[in-house]
């Protein structure tokens, strides 16, 4: 029951968030209804960043303590971060095609997000193909910390470069959105955050079961 608490909270929360985003939030005057993609696109981007930040923190803790649990958390967070960043890279072009008339342009924000995604897909591929898993864990912890340096670059890219991507509308330098839009945005963020935490917890437990299976295999062989 305790393990399913987050998912039990997520379902009604997400339903309410979708209602806020698709029905209650006002239609943006210039962008029209396609702006409603914003309410899932932006939270997915933030949670992708959060996932990669967790990879770096868990990797650092693994290097400091050597506890395998942190390594499992890093791998789980990387998978979930890649999932959310993939959703950003899918929803963004759908919105772009509608508003800019093209799916993709190689501007600083889009390109740096794509590079970020590639870095963490590379992390997962290296992990799954490691010949020496014990040594790979330490190397991947360092890789996760270095790759995380791209996160602030992606975030700041719209301020540092002239980009096709719109400027920030929330936060200290944001242009601002109406209170109803803000509610829809944070409702989606809260619902997806519950899912984010639940998925990392589930995947971490599953990785522990995988380690248990490897230990059992070794026991059977011996």
């Amino acid at each position, binding site marked *: 029951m305790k393990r399913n608490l987050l998912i039990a909270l997520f379902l009604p929360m997400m339903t309410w968030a979708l209602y806020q985003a698709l029905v209650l939030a006002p239609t943006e005057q210039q962008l029209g209804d396609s702006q409603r993609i914003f309410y*899932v696109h932006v939270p*997915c981007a933030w949670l992708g960043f959060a996932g990669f930040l967790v990879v770096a923190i868990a990797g650092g803790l693994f290097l400091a303590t050597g506890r395998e649990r942190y390594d499992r958390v890093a791998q789980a967070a990387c998978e979930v971060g890649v*999932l959310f960043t993939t959703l950003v890279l*899918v929803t963004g072009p759908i919105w772009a095609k509608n*508003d800019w008339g093209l799916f993709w342009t190689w501007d600083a924000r889009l390109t740096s997000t794509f590079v970020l995604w590639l870095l963490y897909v590379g992390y997962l591929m290296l992990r799954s193909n490691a010949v020496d898993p014990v040594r790979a864990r330490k190397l991947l912890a360092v890789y996760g910390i270095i790759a995380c340096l791209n996160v602030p670059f992606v975030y700041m890219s719209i301020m540092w470069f002239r980009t096709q991507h719109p400027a920030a509308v929330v936060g200290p330098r944001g242009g601002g959105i109406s209170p109803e839009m803000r509610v829809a945005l944070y409702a989606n963020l809260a619902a997806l955050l519950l899912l984010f935490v639940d998925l990392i917890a589930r995947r971490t437990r*599953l990785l522990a079961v995988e380690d248990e299976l490897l230990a059992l295999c070794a026991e059977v062989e011996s």
Partner: protein
Amino acid sequence: MSFRSDFVAVVAAYSAVIGGIALYVSLLGRKQRLLGEQIAHLRGLLDGGHGGARR
């Protein structure tokens, strides 16, 4: 922008998000089931019997 293209874009984006999450959750569930079966099988072997799930 026309209502039609806005509508299609919103439906496509939200479907992609829900579908992507559902796919990942179902893959986790499948992996969990397979691991459970394999562990039960190995435990059965270790106990000396033929207990556990067979593939």
